[in-house]
Structures are given as C-alpha cells and as structure tokens.
C-alpha cells in the first residue's frame, strides 16, 4: 500500500455528467458512492457544479526521455498530464535511444513510477531503431516489467507490407496491438502541409490525404487476413474515417484515434507560416474536421489521443520548412474536446469518458484504468468544471513545450482535481503532490 493515500469525500459531483452523487475515496479505491455520505477524518471536497469522470488515458504521448530532456522529461510531461486530467499515458517509442528493447521500456516505466503523477505505459517500437527493417524484440518488451502491449514506430510508418503483416501476426502471442502511423512515405517525401487549395497558394509541398488512406486501407485488410488487432494513430482525413467505418462493419478488429487539434484546427492556419501549426499528420480542411467529429461521435473513431509533442523553442522559431512537426496537447485536450464535441451537442460527458478513458484503457490493456465510477473500483477519478473558461497561455503550462497551437484561444472546461490511485495529484486546479509507489521508489 502506498504511503500517501488518504480519505477523500467528494460531495455532489455529477457522475459522468449525470445525477449528482458523493464519492468516497479511501486507500486508493472508490469505497462508496451514493448521497449524503459521511466519513470520519475525510478531506471533504465540494464538487457541486463539477463533473466526475474516470481519469483520462492518453494512447499517444511523447515524453522525450530518454534523449531529449531539453524538450520534455517524464517528470514534466506527466505533471502536464495530471493537470490535463490524465491518470495514464502511453509514452511513444521515438526516444533516444529508441524504446526497442526491454531495457529502455523498463527505464521509462521506472521513471514514470518515480515521478508518480500518472501511470506511464511505454509503447515499444515495432522495428529496431524505428528503421522499418527488422522486428524489435516485441516479446521481451511484453514480458518486461513495463508489460508493453502497444507497439508503434510512430513518427514513421511501418510501410513495408510484409513487415507490417509479421508485426500484426506476432503480437497476437501476447495480446498486443500495432499502432500504425499511416503515412505512405513515397507520396509524402518532403511534405510540409496538407495538399490542397492552401498548399497550392503557399507553395509548400503537399501531404495528400491518399497517403494516409491507402495505408489504412492496406492495414485493415492485413489485420483481417491475419486476425490481429490494429490501432490507427491520429486519423486526420474524412476518407480515413470512411475506410475505418467500412472495416468495422466487416468486423475487422481495428481501433482508431483522433487528436484534439485535428478536431478543431484547419490548414487555413498555415497561411501565417507560423510553425506552431506544423504537425504530422498535417492540419486538414474543415470537411475533414467535420468528418472526424462525426466519426468520434458515432464510435468509428474510438479514442482521443493527444500526440503531445513538445519541442524546444528553437525548433519552432525558424522557417516553416526547417521547423519540427508537433504540438503540445496534454493540458488542452479536455477543453478542446469539450469545445468541439460536447458544447456542440455531438457527445455527452459519458461519451467523453468512453473516448478519453474507457476505450483507451482497453486498447492499451490497462486493467486499472478507464473503470466505472463504482464502489470497489480503483480511484482514478477527475473532477471537471465545465462552466469554467480560460485563455491558453503556453508559458504557464507544466510541459516544457511552448508549442501550443491554441495559444491565446479561450476554451471551456477546467480540470479541478485529479485522483490517481486515490491520491490527489491535482487539487483546486493546481498541481498537488505525486503518488508514492511503496515498492518501487528506490528503483529509479
């Protein structure tokens, strides 16, 4: 049992946005739910007007450590995650060294435990060094202390069809999933932005939608052929949504994710040539944004993944073509999803819990995450004030990355509290203290 869990009585929170109820959190679990609960010695939290949700689970986070500690560390990235309402993140494999061995994934796992802000679940690389040539030791990573279930060369597409087939087949041995960064490399050589009306005017090399859609089409057919589980990272086009919808109708075991930025922003922003809008896959058109929202609402797209990608300022304060691709997202995801999906009437808070927590935990096979807010369940819970409004100021974020494309925007919704394993990592909208793992503190 961890040292610093306590007893917390949350009074009058709208459970999944529904009827208000009390939640009693004790010793890391939800001890009781109901109305008019009392508990001796409990810290009482007045949650009237707040929504209680399961802690969010990010299927797609770049924590940059090891190797690029000038961009982000596990400590700073998971602080940002806790503030954003997350209790678990999947740390992508494109660190330096690449997370392609049991040793590296165990290091990241240990760093996450030592930080104590969220569960850090390392994603293992599919191929050695992300080079797309030879399978990494997927089994060793699965059997490691990090218990890797998700494998991805994210940032780079596993474009060799034979290698992709083998990876999909191989991970069946340990109930793994291959998370594909769908980008046909030859169709996107030198690509700078979405190919279309805006790229034509700006003279920036285009990243055509077909380069994403053709890989997804191939991969769902491969997944069907070998009977494996496929996850599609950061779906960005209307055509991709259609292909995934088609695949699901045929019973193919595919899940898909969309980023908050693809739910809100379009390639019109690139007209400024401000590299804060440079991201991969690129911002698309309004028609794509609307299709992604519809896909997320109807379940074609299973989850929201941030693709949180912090970069040092010098990688953005330059010419567009020189700039790094990526945006921060952990501390704005909840607000952007509320703004685009809930305030528009497309989804309820219960749907929000599904796409940001329940479904994400299932994809990553995280048993203690994405659980119902019921007695006996692990106390990974957040309290959200849906009526709050705030203006995004990257300089005040916990992430080291200042590259938020939402800078200066007013957004709805604020995380008031985050309970991770029954411990408040965030209280009153501010960082509190980390959870202390009893056994593993010394390991890192």
């Amino acid at each position, binding site marked *: 049992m961890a040292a610093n869990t306590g007893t917390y009585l949350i009074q009058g929170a709208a459970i999944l946005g529904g009827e208000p109820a009390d939640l009693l959190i004790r010793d890391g679990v939800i001890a009781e739910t109901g109305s008019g609960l009392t508990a001796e010695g409990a810290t009482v939290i007045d949650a009237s007007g707040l929504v209680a949700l399961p802690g969010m689970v990010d299927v797609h986070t770049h924590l940059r450590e090891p190797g690029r500690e000038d961009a982000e560390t596990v400590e700073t990235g998971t602080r940002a995650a806790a503030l954003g309402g997350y209790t678990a993140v999947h740390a992508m494999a494109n660190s330096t060294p690449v997370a392609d061995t049991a040793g590296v994934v165990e290091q990241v796992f240990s760093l996450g435990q030592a930080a104590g802000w969220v569960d850090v679940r390392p994603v293992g690389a599919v191929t050695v060094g992300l080079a797309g040539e030879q399978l990494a030791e997927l089994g060793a990573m699965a059997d490691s202390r990090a218990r890797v279930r998700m494998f991805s060369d994210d940032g780079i597409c596993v474009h060799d069809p034979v290698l992709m087939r083998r990876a999909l087949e191989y991970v069946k041995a340990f109930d793994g999933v291959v998370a594909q960064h769908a980008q046909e490399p030859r169709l996107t050589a030198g690509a700078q932005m979405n*190919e279309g009306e805006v*790229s034509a005017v700006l*003279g*920036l090399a285009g990243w055509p939608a077909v380069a994403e859609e053709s890989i997804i089409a191939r991969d769902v057919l491969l997944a069907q052929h070998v009977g494996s589980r496929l996850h599609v990272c950061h779906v960005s086009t209307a055509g991709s949504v259609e292909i995934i919808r088609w695949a699901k109708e045929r019973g193919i075991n595919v899940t898909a994710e969309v980023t908050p930025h693809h739910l809100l922003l379009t390639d019109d922003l690139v007209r400024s040539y401000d590299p804060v809008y440079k991201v991969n896959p690129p911002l698309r058109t309004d028609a794509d944004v609307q299709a992604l929202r519809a896909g997320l609402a109807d379940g074609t797209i299973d989850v929201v993944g941030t693709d949180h990608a912090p970069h040092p300022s*010098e990688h953005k304060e*330059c*010419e567009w073509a020189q700039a790094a691709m990526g945006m921060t997202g952990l501390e704005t995801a909840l607000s952007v999803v509320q703004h685009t999906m809930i305030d528009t009437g497309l989804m309820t808070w219960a749907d929000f819990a599904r796409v940001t927590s329940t479904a994400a935990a299932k994809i990553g096979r995280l048993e203690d995450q994405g659980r119902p807010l019921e007695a006996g369940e692990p106390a990974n819970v957040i309290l959200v004030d849906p009526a709050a409004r705030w203006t995004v100021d990257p300089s005040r974020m916990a992430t080291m990355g200042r590259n938020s494309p939402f800078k200066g925007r007013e957004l709805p919704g604020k995380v008031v509290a985050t309970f991770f394993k029954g411990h408040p990592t965030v209280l009153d909208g501010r960082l509190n203290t980390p959870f202390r793992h009893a056994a593993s503190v010394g390991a890192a």
Partner: protein
Amino acid sequence: MKHLLSTEDLSLSNAIRILDTAEEMAAVGDREVKKLPALRGRTVVNLFFEDSTRTRISFEAAAKRLSADVINFAAKGSSVSKGESLKDTAQTLSAMGADAVVIRHWASGAPHRLAATDWIDAAVINAGDGTHEHPTQALLDAFTMRRHWARLAGTGSEGADLKGMRVAIAGDVLHSRVARSNVWLLRTLGADVTLVAPPTLLPIGVEKWPCKVSYNMDETLEQGADAVMMLRVQGERMNASFFPSTREYSRRWGFDDNRLRALDTLGMKDTIIMHPGPMNRGLEISAAAADSPRSTVLAQVRNGVSVRMAALYLLLSGDTREPAATPALAYAGTHSTKESN
C-alpha cells in the same frame, strides 16, 4: 505598405502605385547620371539564402540608384543543425541598423516569418521564397506588359491596368513562384490568364485559382494570346517522373520554332514572348523565339531595376521616420509618398 511579401494581398491601388512610380524611376535610368538621392543614409541588406546573381544585382543596382548603402549577405544553409538560424541572422542585421531587408530564401514563407516576428523591424521585400512568390518579378512582368498594352492602345501607361489582355503562362507552375505571383497580380490588374502545363506540373487545388488551365499549348495559342510567358523548366524534373523526357516536354509545352511561326500564321503580330530568365534554350524556349523581336527578355531585365527602385522607394520613404526622403524625388514626379496602409 510596410513590406512587399506577395502579390496575393497586394491591392490594385498599391500595384498601380508601384508601376507608376517605376515609370518615373525608368526615366532616371535614361539619364546620364542614373542616380537619385532619395535613400541617402538608408541601409538595404540583400539577404540571399539561395544563389541568384541576377536578382541580387538587380536589387543592388536599384538601391544604389537611390543612393542607399547596400550590404550583400549571402547566407548559405540557415538550418539549426547547419549553423546560424534565420532568427539570429535577422537580429544581427537589425542590430546593424538595416532599414530594408531584401530576402531570397529557398523556404516558402521565410519573408513572412521576418515580417511577422519581432526579430527585425526593417521593411521586408520578398525577392523570391521557395515555390511561393516572387512579387517583384511579377511586378516587372506586369510593367513590361503594361507598356506593351498601352503602346498598342496608343495611350500612356500611367495609371493603367491590364484589362482585356490575354496572358498565357506555360511551364512548371507547380514549382514556380513566378507563376503564382503573376497569377495573383494579373488577376488584380484585370488580365485573363491561362496556365499551360502538363498536369503533373500543376498544383492540386489550381482549379480554385483565378485563371484558366490548359494542357495544350497549341490550342491556347489558337485561342489567342497577347503575351506568352515561358517558365524555366528543370531537366531534373524528368527523373521524378513529372514528364517522360526533355524532348517530349519541349515538343508538347516548349515555345519552339513551329509555334513561333504559328503566331505569324494566326495573325498574332503583336504577341510578345516573355521569360523570367535564366532560359533553357532548346527546352522551354527555342533560340529563335528567345532572340526574336517578340521577345521581351531584356526589357524585363531592364524594367526589373525600375520596379525594384519603386518598391524600395515606396517602402522606405513612405516611412514617417524619414520625412526628408520626400522632397528628394519631387522632380521625378508629383505624388503622395504617404502610405495609407
């Protein structure tokens, strides 16, 4: 007008003002002493991240004819990994007191970055950025066309636009900043533009541009053109399968001797042939076409200096920080040098 970054957002009144001012500047070029004191004491930096001797010396001549001090800064490879960043370079030039930066960059949008950030406060002139825009090239092309169009009409060119003029722009539109700048400016000036190119060398999205698109050079000529602008085509494009061979390109889309003769056959005696240079003789334009009386290639070069003088003058003397510049041009014409925007 604080900067000259693109023709896409250049208003008709500003375009006409630049062209009219260029006419006055051209008169200076005809004098024995080709120099005005307008920009005395001002510093113009030619910041070239990409080699272009022609454009650089044109800007250099323009700035010198206005008595500005000129610094040529050839910055090769600005990447973070390779050396100094654009930001550091800009701040360095700012610290040295540059009043205007003429920037040529291989990256689309680099001039916009200079203008939009607080790295430097100088006026920024885009001298060609990546495959985006080359506004002074389009202005000198429009200047050349306007003179031709006015001469045919028997009027003066001052204050005139290009309404009714039919312009065909042929070649590698996809990679051409010259084509983009011309399409926007010619639209603003009222000309009818047809782009002629193989489908592989037209950008996705071109159907939204304010022009017609054709895959057929001969049909375009048969339908009539008052100016035919040939774009430079790089033979290496063949290796990326944009076209099968330079010979096939030349036959289908080049301005060869047959098409030069066709202009006569079709009775298009006043049609001019333009090229921004440098030319690939025998590829997109035949030697006979380049050297024919229809060719305006050298006039374009000459007009380039006038147009760049006008741009520098309007950007720098329109600045309230230097009111002394105003009377300097007084004898070259009378017009307001105060910019409303």
